[in-house]
């Protein structure tokens, strides 16, 4: 069964450093989402792509976060500089163009020291 791939699974960094997360959605899935999940809470959408275009980045802290999906396939989420409050699980999800269900990857757990 096809799955969403994410790497790294775990990342420890010091504040003010730059970090990057990678996501490869299920093949053929046009829509890709990045979520942030703070411990004890549900996921919150950071950015949504339709193919290579950003559909919604209203909740993305654009002063430090950036996301791209240059060829409309895999995607990278970057934080620069990282802050202590960025410690969380970063989840990637994807859907085909005409389906409602979002399929999630295993996530990247970030710890900022």
């Amino acid at each position, binding site marked *: 069964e096809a799955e969403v791939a994410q790497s790294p699974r775990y990342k420890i960094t010091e504040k003010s450093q730059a970090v990057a997360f990678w996501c490869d959605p299920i093949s053929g899935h046009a829509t890709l989402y990045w979520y942030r999940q703070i411990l004890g809470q549900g996921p919150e959408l950071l950015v949504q792509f339709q193919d290579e275009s950003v559909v919604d980045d209203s909740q993305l802290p654009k002063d430090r976060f950036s996301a791209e999906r240059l060829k409309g396939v895999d995607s990278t989420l970057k934080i620069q500089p990282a802050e202590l409050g960025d410690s969380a699980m970063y989840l990637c999800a994807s859907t085909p163009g005409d389906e*409602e269900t979002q399929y999630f990857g*295993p*996530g990247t757990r970030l710890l900022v020291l």
Partner: protein
Amino acid sequence: AQSVAQPEDQVNVAEGNPLTVKCTYSVSGNPYLFWYVQYPNRGLQFLLKYITGDNLVKGSYGFEAEFNKSQTSFHLKKPSALVSDSALYFCAVRVHNNNDMRFGAGTRLTVKP
């Protein structure tokens, strides 16, 4: 904007007993409702969804959920709990033609032998 409430942070049941994890929602329009399960340090796994049709939806691992429009609820149920069902459960809602998925805060289910 849509929202989801999971009124119980924690649900404890004995193995073999029925379980219920509660979810209520608020939307403008017809809701699409989802249940996901999350195991430690993993992404969210899709369990089931309600889009339209029969109010009783059957999903993975013996779980089912009932859509109740008058009570704006979508409670997750299982007739006989297993220890392996112990995990974090998330309810989510979105509306048609809107990819904005909102998640509840999650309910931790513990099934004791």
